[in-house]
């Protein structure tokens, strides 16, 4: 079926806000991950309100210090919830 913008202030697009609002610019403190301490549990990524933490698929036999998470600094607002909730204190908030 044809979809077309005619009138009515509807935004005929999806997810475009991410292309413009780089909320990472708001950050006052940066999350810094100690990859040696990080065990790759899902806690930080689950609690990040801005969907900025991705767990990487890492083989169990990977050497110590292999990154297990990445933080999307383009959008991270630096709230510090991840650092607060990390059971291994693997994330530190550093003044930026």
């Amino acid at each position, binding site marked *: 079926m044809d979809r077309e913008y005619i009138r009515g202030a509807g935004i005929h697009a*999806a997810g475009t*806000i991410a292309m413009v609002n780089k909320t990472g610019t708001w950050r006052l403190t940066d999350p810094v991950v100690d990859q040696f301490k990080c065990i790759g549990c899902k806690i930080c990524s689950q*609690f990040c*309100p801005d969907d900025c933490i991705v767990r990487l698929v890492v083989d169990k036999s990977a050497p110590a210090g292999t990154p297990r998470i990445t933080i999307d600094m383009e959008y991270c607002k*630096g*709230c*510090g919830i991840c650092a607060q909730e990390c059971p291994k204190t693997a994330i530190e908030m550093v003044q930026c």
Partner: protein
Amino acid sequence: MKMFLSGNQCIAQGAKLSRVEVVAAYPITPATPASEDLHEMVGRGELDAEVVNTESELGAMGVCVGAAAAGCRTFSCTCSQGLALMREMLWAASGMALPVVLAIDSREIGIPQGLLSDYSDCLSERDASILQFMCEDGQEIIDSLIMAYRIGEHEKVLLPSFVVSEGHRVSHSFETVDVPEQEDVDKFLPKYQPKHVFVDPDYPMSMGTGVMPQYPSFKMQQYRAMQDAKTVIKEVCDEFADAFGRRYGLVEAYRTEDAEMVMVGMGSVVSILREKVDEYREKGLKVGMLKLRVFRPFPEEEVREALSGAKKVLVFDRACSPGNEYGISCIEIRSALRRSQALISNIMISGRDVSSEDVDALYDKWAEADDEYVEWFKADFDPRAVSMCGFDNFEKLVKGETVERDVVQEGEACLSKGIMSCSGCVSLGAIRMVLDVFGKKAIVVNNAGCLSAVGAFYPMTGWNVPFYFFSYSNAGAAASGIEVAMKRKGIDGDLILVAGDGAIFDIGLQTYSAALERGHRIICLCYDNEGYMNTGVQCSGSTPHGARTKTTLEGRRGRAKNMEQIVAAHGDVYIATASVAYPDDLLKKVRKAKSFDKPSFLHVICPCPPGWEYDPALGIEIARLGVESGATPLYEYEDGKVTLTKVPKVKKPLAEYLRKQGRFSHLTDDDIAEMQAEVDRKLERLTAGNL
């Protein structure tokens, strides 16, 4: 006394100086700071008034009408959607001859949700027999408020008033104003002692009754009161000038005596027009300006007189009347000048700011034109609206490239990154968590609140799933409509009503209740941050006892509504409370709700960093403490029975939860002990299986 005040602060000063007795207001941007100021004034003992926090604007106007019918001087402030929601009670106020005064921070009426100021809100009430004073600046707001009570309470008038200023443009601009002394105001505006409305068991009176053929007679009385108001306004303005040295009238005719071309405007645009008139006059151009200070009653005679010599008139309109060629004030001007030969042109400025250069450009065209015309100012169709159609790559679109629109993939987040919520907003986290259970099948309906402000803003949207915002009060009904239509059209999806606590507990309760009663399959996610946080932290029906907000400065008295009990009273509804700190428990409940073919109510408590006053990093910890202390217990309610889903092994003291939040910092240990006892009682009740 000279003070440096914002427009909203002027509103509060004007109401205070008028010694209002009852204030009722509901949070709405940009008018909220005015009522917050009044709360503070009452708190400091500067104003002896009852301030009522209501559940909606309709409720606010209802309280004002009730209090005015009982003989009190009453006040409210609102704008836009709020004024639209008040509508029925506005007509009640004028019909009952109640001189309620409303300060209106004019704002564009949705949809789309405008934030700037046009006059579509107040001028839509043109025919409600309400006096309308259109203020240019803060000084005029204070003076007009004081005069509005004098005029409205005059026995020949007895009508409600709007004191209109422009939202954001004036309400949030600071300027030096001369605030009259209270004793001078008291002399000018005596205590309100109405003869026609009162509560008196010895002299019972029935108000608001039905009438049959007499309706036109009553309407004619309002019509005459409006006509008489013109004389009263002039008298009161003269008295005001004698008392305070500032002269106002129905209109301000500025250098119109010999003017061949006259610009006409209302509100703040007049300031720039006045300056431009001086500039044009220096160049020898015969230009003048007419400010319409009073829109209702419309000063026909004064307008006719001021424009008697004009060959060309240009009316600046902040509101249009679709279906009529002209803007609303231009319609009135044309009516007043119906026998004049003047060429009357009209420029629709709507909510736009008008600069000096803009006026020059408008003037040049107007001066050259040899006929009348109507034009919209800077309102060309936004090409982005068209180019967004069918595409979703903003950056490429801005460059003018064409992109095939991608279909949102399975497993993609319902809400994109880049959402403009505060740092550490766990409400956003909760919404993401819940919606992602539904994925592409989610269809989201949203009441006004933080989410509607941060999730999408034209021409950008954060939504990867269908998203609908209708209004604050009506999401329950509108969601019902979508559910019915989805069934009819065979659309497979899960309808989720995402609403804050204000939206469900207060303003939207009526339509949500009806939706529950009808049994639509709507999964309601109530993200509860225990207050009106989007408008800057005011008390809602969910604000807990003792919590400080800007409208409960000494801590909330009374109790939060037990929403679960209310929802349960509707019959077969799946009810669950959840917390962002316990995602597994939350997701289990969401999946359960998804599996049911009946309404569900998911109540998720979400700490709010600015509203609860804590370090944003502590959001999850505070939410967890809420559960561990029993302040926000997690449970399900099915088949008439409560089942606690998370019982802390060791219950933490409530103080640990409360002391982490600034909003409870004023509480004494005794206060907390009392609250602890209440929490214990509630837990006992829940443990026994009762809501």
